[in-house]
């Protein structure tokens, strides 16, 4: 272990490292207790991130997708080319570039901001919310049904199908020769899924066979939660390692021989 020079103070890069190290320590101080340093860092964080998002959203989304489109649209309009202004080509077919069609989201966006200006007209923001949420819901219906429900149900019997030559061939899966251990695993997986699924039946009181199944379901849930927790610990420590590597290597200039 060789102790090198601490990061220099007077270059842009060095100053940056000092600031970053100071803010890192401010946040770490919360572990002991709340204090003015943490409070300062917390408020700075809120401000810096807000400014950061405004800039990123403007340059990456608002400008290319709306402002530039509208500019092109109005330019075409100025030249009297109505079709192009609204994003239609010569034959009248809709072009991918929306141009003045972006006036619709602009209007919806202004409706949202009306909340600031006029209480009376603030209800118009509901139209924007409805649009926004309607689109998201429409996309969600078939995809959630397919990916989260049907394909997961399929996954629960997938192993059985690939272990059975006939089934595998007709389903186009790669047939596998299953050992006893694999069979046991496949059954455990299915029993776990079915019993945990039964836990989420709200319509029936937990009695009789359902009670037994619920109990088994809860056991599976608990093992799963424990496993996820244990698995996650790694990630959390990784993050700490990342910060320590920064403090030790970049700021204090320690190098490992």
């Amino acid at each position, binding site marked *: 272990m060789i102790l090198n020079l601490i990061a220099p103070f007077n270059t842009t890069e060095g100053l940056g490292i000092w600031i*970053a190290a100071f803010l*890192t320590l401010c946040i*770490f101080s*919360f*572990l002991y207790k709340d204090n003015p340093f943490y409070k300062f860092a917390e*408020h700075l964080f809120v401000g*810096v*991130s*807000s*400014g*950061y998002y*405004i800039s990123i959203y403007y*340059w*990456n*989304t*608002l400008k290319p997708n709306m402002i530039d489109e509208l500019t092109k649209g109005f330019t075409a309009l100025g030249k009297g080319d109505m079709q192009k202004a609204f994003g239609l080509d010569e034959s009248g077919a*809709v072009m*991918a570039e929306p141009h003045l*069609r972006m006036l619709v989201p602009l209007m919806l966006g202004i409706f*949202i*901001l009306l909340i600031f200006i006029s209480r009376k007209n603030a*209800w118009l923001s509901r139209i*924007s*919310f*409805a649009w*926004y949420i*309607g*689109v*998201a*819901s*429409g*996309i*969600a219906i*078939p*995809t*959630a*049904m397919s990916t989260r*429900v049907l394909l*997961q149900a399929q996954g629960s019997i997938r192993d059985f199908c690939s272990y059975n030559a006939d089934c595998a061939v007709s389903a186009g899966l790669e047939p596998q020769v299953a050992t006893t251990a694999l069979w046991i695993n496949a059954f*455990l*997986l*299915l*029993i*776990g*899924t079915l019993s*945990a*699924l039964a836990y989420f039946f709200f319509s029936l009181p937990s009695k009789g066979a359902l009670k037994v199944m619920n109990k088994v379901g809860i056991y*599976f849930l*608990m*093992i799963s939660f*424990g496993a996820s*927790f*244990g*698995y*996650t610990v790694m990630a959390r*420590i990784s993050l*700490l390692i*990342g*910060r320590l590597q*920064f403090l030790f290597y970049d700021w204090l200039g320690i190098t490992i021989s």
Partner: protein
Amino acid sequence: MKTKLPVTIAFLTGIFMAFAYFVERDNVAWVRILYEELNQNNIVLAVFVLFLGVGTLLIRHAKKIRDRNSDSIYSWVVIVSTLAVAYIGLFQTTGESIGANENFQWIFNNFQVPLSATMFSLLAFFVASAAYRAFRARNTEATLLLIAAAIVMIGRVPIGAVISDGLNLTGSFSLPAIAEWILDIPNTAAKRAITIGIGLGMTATAIKIIFGIERTYMGSGK
């Protein structure tokens, strides 16, 4: 009007997006383009939503300063840092891309990165204190939680293999193998059941939004 119009709009946009899922959009230009455009609009709307948020943030802190709140110094921190970063990001960017704005990158690397990463890394400590309190063999459920957590925790790091070798556990009975089995079998089973349930819940809510049954997004819904 104040209710019917939004509900109608949610119905039309929603039904169309759901319908478009089933359409071979490469073959049907009008569906494809409408679909893209609705997508595009939502992307842009997200920006206005952010403006709404930051606007209310600034107003709230300005009020605190006006009211001479004892913590108004911190409100100054929020307002000044928001405006300063936004100024650098919006007005010091030349050309078309923020990627070339060195000052902005410097602020990102030396303010946003350490704050965000350190806040996140506090989890390393919290995970330890939570595990210490929660993982006690009080009953069957808690014991299962404890055992699964302990095996996976040890089995997933290099020292798990070292311990296994020391205890002469090999093959499918080594700690890493058991950890992987727990993740693959019981864990997958439980997660799958939760996922299916959530999938149904998501679909149900989306359906109710489209039919105007679920109006939470309008506040009181009146």
